[in-house]
């Protein structure tokens, strides 16, 4: 007994190793459950497996070595010798990783594995040579051949150990709506244990039955879809509805199923739009909050806000490179290399680079802000509209500096692994990176509010903002407070840029994309008012998404949002929240 268990495990491991490539090629990183192990064991550990494997291998060898015009036929014939070992070979062939080498006068097909290892097709042995000979050419494929391969690969996928792959394969088979596939699916239904795949098989059977000549079967399939309401069935049901010859009963059932699906799509879209609206709103908030301080509170029309933001993005990039393999820069014709820590990209420390770069982005942008304030802006507090000109000049210079230091191309920021992927709840996709940005927006907001409302510095900032000269008379060093406030606003912009690196691109002129939006958010919210900024960011974000989904046209949506803001300001000329003032010239 013990012997048997050990034996089975050994076998199991060898199979597992064999499937490894297959797993990776399907980018399926789902952990196999214990159930799966049992399944694999049951399926392939049978006594005649060796035999079937070798016959499959010889069949594909024959196909590979056959003349080109015969290959498609022979590949299709592999259906009689289906075995999992065929998968990696066919895929390698398709992708140009199959070579025929002349080994001691014998033509020997080998495949190149993703780790560049070479493996014999004949018996899966690794070749001792590390590199392909110079003259090796991958075996060509034609369209016809690739179609044949696809069919075999699809059939193989039906027996794949990964339930996800099986689920997809089953659905794909169903989508073809070929009545001849029904027996296969019925057989699979008996064998299948995984609940999700079982449902998929039922869906697939119903999909095919939609094509059935028998009205009752058709109606049964339709009522199945009425209950399940899967979005993928929509096209097929639409096809039925488009057919004018169907009986009223079928039409009725089809209509019902269609309604159920449309209802599902509606709710998916509805909740999706809500989430996307909040997500876009929080992006806008993050982008605008720094501006709400430098422009809203301090009155500096900071056209360089976008560029200060992008400094944050570049910071993330630099930190990412320093954690990894280092960074080579060549500003103004000098090249130099910054050595990296060489951390393993999978390690926790490397994965934390993004979190670590956030405070650094804040600091660096804040320092740049401080320099700008001390060097230029401080002379312009009496002439706020001229800050627009000066900061625009700054923005031109910064853009060109980015270009000269980091090159004209955008820089690639890779999101850490824990921020890639998404929650999917009932079809509503919620990406981790977006959830993170929403969360970050909230944190930034609370932090800003605490700083302004609950700290002595915040008190000073508010004092200086409200009445510079009085504050100065009361012994407040207004210069210092201004510098700190501007630095704080710039720092927030830097954090925004760092967060944007998760969602979009960072490049020399990226800042320009956000500047109009940022100003609109602040102006709509009411200049000098954080609560208004929050409300207007979320409002614009949601409105934009609603218009996008209802007009199916992002451009017109954006135009309408802009026009809407213009009209809204007719009604409330100083934004959602107004600070009233009673001195004459500030009305």
């Amino acid at each position, binding site marked *: 007994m013990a012997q048997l268990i050990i034996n089975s495990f050994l076998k199991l491991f060898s199979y597992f190793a064999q499937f490894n490539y297959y797993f990776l090629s399907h980018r399926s990183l789902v952990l196999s459950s214990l159930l799966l192990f049992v399944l694999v064991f049951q399926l392939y550990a049978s006594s005649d497996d060796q035999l079937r494997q070798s016959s499959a291998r010889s069949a594909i060898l024959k196909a590979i070595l056959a003349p080109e015009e015969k290959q498609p036929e022979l590949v299709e014939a592999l259906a009689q010798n289906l075995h999992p070992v065929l998968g990696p070979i066919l895929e390698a062939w398709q992708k140009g990783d199959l070579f025929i080498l002349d080994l001691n006068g014998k033509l020997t097909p080998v495949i190149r594995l993703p780790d560049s290892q070479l493996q014999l097709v004949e018996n899966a042995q690794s070749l001792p040579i590390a590199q392909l000979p110079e003259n090796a050419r991958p075996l060509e494929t034609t369209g016809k051949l690739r179609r044949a391969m*696809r069919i075999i690969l699809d059939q193989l996928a039906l027996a794949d150990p990964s339930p996800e792959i099986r689920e997809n394969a089953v659905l794909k088979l169903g989508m073809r709506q070929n009545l001849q596939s029904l027996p296969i699916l019925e057989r699979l239904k008996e064998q299948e244990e995984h609940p999700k795949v079982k449902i998929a098989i039922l869906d697939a059977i119903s999909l095919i039955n939609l094509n059935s000549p028998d009205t009752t079967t058709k109606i049964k399939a339709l009522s199945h879809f009425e209950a399940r309401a899967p979005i993928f069935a929509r096209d097929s049901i639409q096809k039925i509805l488009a057919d004018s010859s169907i009986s009223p009963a079928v039409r009725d059932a089809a209509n019902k199923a269609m309604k159920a699906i449309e209802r599902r799509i509606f709710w998916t879209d509805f909740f999706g739009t809500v989430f996307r609206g909040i997500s876009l709103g929080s992006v806008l908030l993050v982008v605008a909050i720094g501006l709400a301080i430098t422009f809203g509170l301090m009155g500096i029309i900071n056209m360089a806000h976008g560029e200060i933001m992008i400094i944050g993005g570049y910071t993330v990039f630099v930190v990412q490179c320093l954690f990894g393999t280092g960074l080579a820069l060549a500003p103004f014709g000098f090249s130099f290399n910054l050595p990296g820590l060489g951390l393993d990209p999978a390690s926790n420390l490397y994965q934390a680079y993004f979190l670590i770069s956030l405070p650094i982005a804040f600091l660096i942008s804040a320092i740049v802000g401080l320099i700008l304030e001390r060097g230029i802006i401080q002379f312009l507090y009496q002439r706020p509209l001229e800050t627009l000109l000066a900061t625009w000049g700054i923005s031109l210079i910064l853009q060109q500096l980015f270009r000269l230091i980091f090159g004209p191309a955008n820089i690639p920021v890779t999101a850490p692994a824990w921020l890639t992927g998404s929650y999917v709840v009932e079809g509503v*996709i919620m990406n981790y990176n977006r959830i993170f940005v929403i969360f970050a927006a909230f944190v930034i907001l609370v932090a800003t509010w605490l700083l302004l409302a609950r700290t002595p510095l915040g008190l000073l900032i508010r004092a200086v903002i409200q009445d510079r000269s009085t504050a100065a008379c009361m012994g407040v060093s207004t210069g210092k407070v201004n510098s700190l406030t501007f630095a704080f606003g710039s720092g927030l912009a830097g954090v925004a840029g760092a967060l944007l690196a998760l969602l979009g691109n960072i490049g020399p002129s990226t800042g320009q994309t956000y500047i109009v939006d940022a100003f609109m958010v602040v102006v709509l919210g009411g200049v000098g008012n954080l609560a208004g900024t929050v409300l207007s960011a979320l409002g614009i974000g949601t409105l934009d998404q609603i218009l996008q989904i209802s007009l199916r046209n992002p451009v017109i949506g954006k135009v309408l949002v802009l026009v809407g803001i213009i009209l809204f300001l007719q009604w409330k000329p100083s934004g959602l929240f107004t600070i009233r003032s009673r001195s004459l010239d500030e009305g």
Partner: protein
Amino acid sequence: MKIKSLISFLAIAIFAAIIPSFAADKVVKVGVLHSLSGTMAISETSLRDVLLFAFDEINKSGGVLGHKIEPIVVDGASNWPLFAEKAKELLEVHKVPVVFGCWTSVSRKSVLPVFEKNNGLLFYAVQYEGEELSPNIFYTAEAVNQQATPAVDYLLEMGRKKFYLLGSDYVYPQTTNLILLEYLLSKGIPIENIGGGLRKDSKGNVISAGKYVPFGHTDFQQIVAEIKQFAASGDACVINTINGDSNVPFFKEFAASGLTAEECPVVSLSLSEDEFRSLPTKDLVGHLGAWAYFMSLDTPENKKFKENFFEWLKTANVPGIERQNRVTCSPMVLSYSSVYLWKAAVEKAGSFEVDKVRAALESGEITFLGPNGLNTMLKNHHTKKNVYIGETKADGQFKILRQFEQVVPEPFLKGTFLKK
């Protein structure tokens, strides 16, 4: 009085700037007209680099007709009227016999009248939408049937049945998608399987196919959700003509939403290796590209070209040039090929005169075996060349999946597929 003196001062300043410096004997000046600042600098700077490399290479091996090439590099600053002004300056003041330049269609359109008026010669080396044929422009890059339709052929071969068209809101994507719409219909794809939306005018003519986003669009949540629904019933793919910048948020959103290249491959017509430098390629693995050249192309010409170019970059004396992490890509190689095509034509004509060079180019005998294979300039001002389909790898290179041999360019495609 002050104004007058100022204006005359300015006039003198302009004169001083544009009066050519005393040239040595046997020099031919050629114009390079690309955006080195502004939004398009991201793509166009690389073309300037490769052009300067080609000139150096030619100068080293004796020049053209015994003349050394002296490039006049001009910054179009992503500003289209400025492009026209600079083209005028190159042709009227510097009297260059040839200009290599432009990236966007609109920049080409803005300089076109200038070239026609002054009978200049422009080599344009970026894939474009066709529907244009100027006697003064030679188009050395991919026409729509050398890029987009082969890509569709490949996808059809792979059994794709639903096509989602997505692009930036400007003329290249719009035109390409209209042509593709006709092409797909002619291949028997039902119109409801073409995603992104159709817009018709009051008479029912389709005036726009596909989904368009404004330049610099960053929020693709809604569009990716739509693609996910579109792809739910299987065998779908996306034909992506989004321009430069916006690809990053698109692919980030696409990857994060769980859509894979297996399920729904994206074939991008505006993304080459050069753009990949600024994309997180992790998110693009398995997606497709279609170009007349891939850096991974394994030919002796390409190997030599890459070696020489990277060697040249190390020492090139060009302000602000990037020396690190450089790659080569189709527009770069086709720019490079343009220079050699021009050289060949000049040598055949035995003169720099535009009319003679044009006649030589139109003879159909001007060829260049370049890094991308053989380029033949045809009478229709476009080049015949190979087209490749490639799959993105994690290192930002393409793995070549398919090669279409010596595709004959056809600039005017609209309306041709459905008539057949």
